């Protein structure tokens, strides 16, 4: 278990509760405390959580995992909104979760400084690979 993970705050954005819960389970198994993981069902709610955290001067989030394909504010729209935000969270590491058939589109996200992407199904190994690449 990685000691570096124990104070990291993570935001998971996905409209499918099953996927949010599955990712949350993987993250807790890797050593991220459950109390430091928050979930949002779309980009709009995700943005509200980030803004509220900033406004209330709570511990900022360290990383966002976001689904690409969501009906209310897609992953790329959410990423754009975060990067355009005047708040301190605008440079937050941001990982897009996508399907194999959508991966070509992820190149568009590079313009908005996406940190990395993961192809579904999300596994413990793919998350570890991402965190290793970020040198966490």
């Amino acid at each position, binding site marked *: 278990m990685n000691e570096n993970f124990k104070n990291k705050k993570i935001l998971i954005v996905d*409209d*499918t509760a*099953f*996927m949010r*819960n*599955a*990712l949350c*389970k*993987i993250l807790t198994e890797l050593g991220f405390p459950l109390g430091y993981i928050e979930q949002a069902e779309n980009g709009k709610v995700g943005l509200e959580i980030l803004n509220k955290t900033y406004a209330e001067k709570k511990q900022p989030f360290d990383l966002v995992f976001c689904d690409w*394909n969501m*009906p209310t504010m897609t992953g790329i729209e959410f990423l754009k909104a975060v990067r355009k935000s005047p708040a301190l969270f605008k440079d937050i590491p941001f990982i897009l979760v996508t*399907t*194999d*058939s*959508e991966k070509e589109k992820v190149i568009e996200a590079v313009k908005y400084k996406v940190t990395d992407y993961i192809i*579904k*199904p*999300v*596994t*413990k190994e793919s998350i570890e690979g991402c965190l290793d690449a970020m040198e966490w």
Partner: protein
Amino acid sequence: MSTVIIDEVEMPKNMNFFILEDTPLFQKKMVDSLNDLGFSGNVTVADNIAMAYKKLEDKKTHFILSDWNLPDGKGIDFLKKIRADSNYDGIPFIMVTTMDGVDEIIDAAQIGADDYIIKPWEEDEFAKKISSAYQKRVNK
């Protein structure tokens, strides 16, 4: 092409659904729920995993609903087989379970399950999960 529209997601009316479920009551309920949504009744039903492997070859399948507990294994065994077979690339796959199976089922996401439905389901919830899984896999 005739379509079924659920939550603004447009799906072909004549989609072939595949149901792997050993309880006749839930087989019937699933078929009824799909028919009530407006699909044209192209449903193949298998009682167990061995039968499912055989029946899958008979007709092209566009969407799979599988029970978690089956007489000859777990739904996850069937899911693994589907996700390892390129003939079924990108096909939506939803697990169906009782409340007791929810904790166990979460690991199926790592194999490629799209979602799960808890028995007995509300029709609205059933419709939403079918359309969402389809939208994410097929209708991008």
